[in-house]
Every structure is written in C-alpha cells, then in structure tokens.
C-alpha cells in the first residue's frame, strides 16, 4: 500500500518516486502546498476508492498518516 501511496504522491506533485521517503510529509515536500493537498486527497480517493471525512482530510499530511487512515478504512 505504501508504494501505491507514494506513486500517487509522485504523480500529483510531479516528483520522481525515489524523492518520496517513507517519512515524507507536507513539511518535507515543497510542492505539497495547501492546494496540492486537496489535489492529493482527490487522487487518493480515486485510486483507493475511498472517501475521507471532512475532519480527517486536514490531518493526512504525511505518508504515515495516509497509510494509517487508508488501513482503517479498508479493514
């Protein structure tokens, strides 16, 4: 799942997949702006076929947080 998350990030932000570390977050990736964040959420929802809640969205600001939220939704 982590690889797929990273691949979505790399697509949305136009970065090579190697540039996205396991501990990547909004603080470490420059293109991850507040608007980029919404783009990312839309793409994640489409790729994984899920829907995050309004309260959840602002918190999904790292690969780890996304992975955790997706695991919870998928299980």
């Amino acid at each position, binding site marked *: 799942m982590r690889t797929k998350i990273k691949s979505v990030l790399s697509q949305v932000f136009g970065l090579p997949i190697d540039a996205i570390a396991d501990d990547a977050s909004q603080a470490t990736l420059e293109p991850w702006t*507040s*608007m980029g964040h*919404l*783009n990312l959420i*839309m793409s994640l*929802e*489409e790729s994984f076929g899920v829907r*995050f*809640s*309004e309260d959840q*969205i*602002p918190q999904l600001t790292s690969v780890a947080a996304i992975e955790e939220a997706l695991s919870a939704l998928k299980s």
Partner: protein
Amino acid sequence: MSSASSPPPPTAPLGQDPRPLRIVTLQNVTVDLIEPHLRAAARESGWAASVRFGQFDGILQQASNAEDPIWAETPDLVLVFASLETLAPRLVWRFPSLGPEEIEQEVGRIGGFVASTLRALRRHTSAMVVWHGFETPPIPAYGVLDAQLERGQSRVVAELNEQLRLHLAQAGNGFVVEMDRIMARIGADQFYDRRYWHLARAPYGRAALAEIARQDLLLWRAAQGRARKCLVLDCDNTLWGGIVGEDGVSGIRLSSEHPGSSYHYFQQAVLSLYDRGVILALCSKNNEDDVWSVFRERPEMVLEERHIAAAQINWDDKVTNLRRIARDLNIGLDSLVFVDDSEFEINMVRELLPEVATLHLPPGKSELAGEILTASGFFDTLSVSAEDRRRGEMYRAESQRRALRDAVDDLGSYLASLEIAVRICPLEEATIARAAQLTQRTNQFNLMTRRVGESEMRELLADPASAVLTLQVRDRCGDYGMVGLAQLRRAEDGVHLENFLLSCRVIGRGVEDTLLAACLELARRGSPPTLHACFLPTDRNALVRDFLDSRGFYLDREESDGRFYHRPGAAPLDAMPAHLHSVETTLPPDFP
C-alpha cells in the same frame, strides 16, 4: 467516483505539436483543482494549456486592473467562476428572508457586477470569455413550494442566467457553460463536494471539474473552427442490430419498438446532427447492395439514402475507405469522426489515421449510443446558419455534379457544363453570421487564416477604412451559398488584403480569380493604387502557398510568420477563367 454515465474521452487528435493555449481564470471560489482537468481536456484537442489562477474573490478587481500580473501574458481564454455562494450568499442560504424588493435589488446588483466585469475585461482584452452560469440550488430553500412561486429561488437563478447571456452577447466573444446542465448530467451529489467547500471554499467535486473543463474546451475548439464536419458510420451493429449479410434485410433488428428501438434512437441522434449541418457518410464491410436494400426496403430506417453524402461499402480496410471518403467530399481527414462497434476497426483507425476522431460504441450497450454521439461534442459549433441547414442538400447536388463530371471527358467542358454563376457583393448585416462562420471554419484555401467573430465582423461593416467582399456561387445543380470572402483595409501605402478565403466546396472551379479581380479593382481606385497581400502558413493551408506568386504578385519579403507581397498599380489579372457562365460584381461605392 463513478463515471459510468460519462462518455468515453474523445480520442487524441493530430500527431502535431500542441499549440499553446493561455488560460486565465477569475473566481470568487477556489477552482485551482481544475488545472489538471483543463490541461487534459486541452491536450485531447491538440492544445498545451497553461493556467493562471486569479485571486480568491478578485473577479472585478483583477478584470479592471490591466496591470495585474495575471494579464502579463496575453490570454487566449478567460474563464470566470462567479459562484452565487460568494456573490450573493443571501440568495443561496437565506432566500426565505428576502422580500420581493430585496430580490429585485440582488438581481440588479448581480447584473451590474456581470456587466462591469465584462466591460472592464473588454477594455484590455479581446480574449474569449467563458462564464460559468449560475447554479440552481438542487434543494430549494422553500422546498416543494419553490416551484409554485412566481419568483422562487429557481426562477431567480434562471433570470440571472438570462441576464448573463445577454451581457455576454453584448460584450462579444463571450459564452456560457451551463453549470446546471453539468449538474443534471452527473448529479448534484457528484457535482458538489461539500467537504472541500468547508475546507477550502472549493465547491466542485472531481467529476464536476472534469466535465466543466471538457465543456470549456468544447467551446474553445468550436471557436477555433476545429469542429468536425463529417460523421462516418459503420452499418452492422451500429445503424441496426445484427449483420445484414447474415441475418438478411428482414432479419436485422431495427424498429421503433423493442427489439431494435435503441438503433432507431441512435439514427435519430444522427439525423439531428445532419439537421445541424453535419455531413453523413457510410463506411461498412458489406455487399453494397445489401446495405442499400436496408435503406430502401426497411420502412423503420430513419436515415434515407438522400442523407448520405458518401459511401464506401466494400471489403477493403477502413483506413483506405476513410481516405476515399475524405477525398470524395474534399475535406480533411481531421474533419472526420468515425463510429464503429468494433474495437478492432477503431484501434486500427486510431493507430493509422490519428487525425480521424473515433467513437467506439460499446457492444451490448446500443441504448447509450445516441447519447455518446451527441455528448462527444465533436460537431459542436458556435452558430448554425441557414447554410448549415442546407448542407445535406448541397452535398446531394455535389454528387449530381460528380455524375456530370463522369459523363464529360475533359475538365474544361465539365466546368462549362456546370454553368457556374458568380456574384460578388459587399458584406451586409444579413450576411454577417455566415461571413464570420466562413472565417472560422475555412482552413485549406485561406491565405491569412484570420478568424473573425460576429461582433468583429459587424465592426468591420461599420468601419469606413474597411471593406468586406463576399462571394456567392451557384450552378445548374444547386446553390452553394456564400463560399468566399475577402477583407480589405485602406492604408497610406495602398489597400491591404487582410483575409482571403474560399470554402472547400468550390475549390477547383476558378471562382477565386473573380474575387481577387474584384479586390484589385477596388485597390486601383486608391492612392497609391496598390494591393498588398500575404500568405501566412498554418498546418493546413499549403494549398495556397503559391497562390499569390501564380497570380503575378511581387514578393516583398519573407519572414518567419509568412510571405508578404504586393501588386503595383493593382493591375488586373492576366487571364480570367473562361468557363464561368456569369460574373456579377457589386463594389462598395466609397472604398477606399
């Protein structure tokens, strides 16, 4: 998110480099999320879009300030997203609190906002403006009562949209994308994503953004004269169910009742396109007699032989046949849309003729075919003229001409036998729409390819420094209507030809020389008596690269954008085509 109801994306066009398309958006909500969709939709149509987003709630401010960095590069297309939620929150959220006078006030205020924004834009840009229409709340504040009220919420929004349409028409080169229709198509729950509204004042969901971007680009493509012209139809399992060669003329499924009614519906959608001026052709692997027998013997056929301008019904491959159809109709391959139920045929055409647009009708879903065809937008234009409505008739006349040509040995006597009559006269109010359309749709015989909108054409009519000549042609088989145009402007060094074009319908008839002769005659009246002209190459007008050379114009200079010529003394042409039956020329009395 589901996209089951949306049509398949239009196929990628031309194998050429995409042309740049500079988009500026003005908005009072967050729409930045539309960027990837705009770029994708532009790419589908052959443009490379770059998008500059305006500030949040900065519509009028940025429209008014020509120095704002958003205008640093001249835009081609300005998109306006003016949501009522920001513009008039009380109309949206507190409608029941408003009395009749307050509603009136709000409507007036919003009309004023639209008018001021458009006026401000037109002071510094002539770019195409696409304004996204106001949205009818899917759940009105008065509930079921709303529809009963003389001025319920829905009616007020309809008034606002009508007002918007009028202001855009007045501003010129301004168009609406109806958001309500997009919402109806994809459903309000998909259209709005309230989470993004609360987080970032971004109202639209992903499916809405994709469809809005697609509609924006359909308008842009139509304005660029890139609408397709000819629908090429497969027959078996496209026009009817089953295979006529195996099932027989009486065995195929086609009826106004089930089974076969979905094909009946599809044919009606095809016929609606015909009524809009789309040329119809058949491309089918079949015995020709079988197909025509269906046309003649099955009364349930909506399409008739007279609707079909060209047909290739044989066992050759469809790529070859599509080339033949384009040649027979004298139109480019990039004017064709090919429809087939066979994935094999569609893929082969995509691979080998990327200029041809394709629509694959999904097998077993014939009930969707009509909608897929109409929703594709391939044939969408910004006007439908009387000429368009008569186009089918004209192509019938054309096939009669082909029959004449086959009966006569040499080209000269064929042309003479046509009894071609030419009429040249100045542009009039009544011919403005067709004249503008000609400049937008003509690609091959077009020296300068200047696209002129209706409002600009009207300005030219009023401008004493300009003259526009129109060319009308008819022959013994029928009337071609207005098929040529020359646009002239006086200057200190003589008269400049600013547009010179001829519809592909009359290429090869020698009528262009009569129009050029009329331009020279006008220029001879000027001082100095000189006609300046140029050839500006595009990817489609190689046909006329040597036109001015061959008509004795002197090449002054060759630059990266084109070749510039003049004809001193605006001397008459050396020779005029001898086969024309009559030429009637009326020149504007007071030009230059």
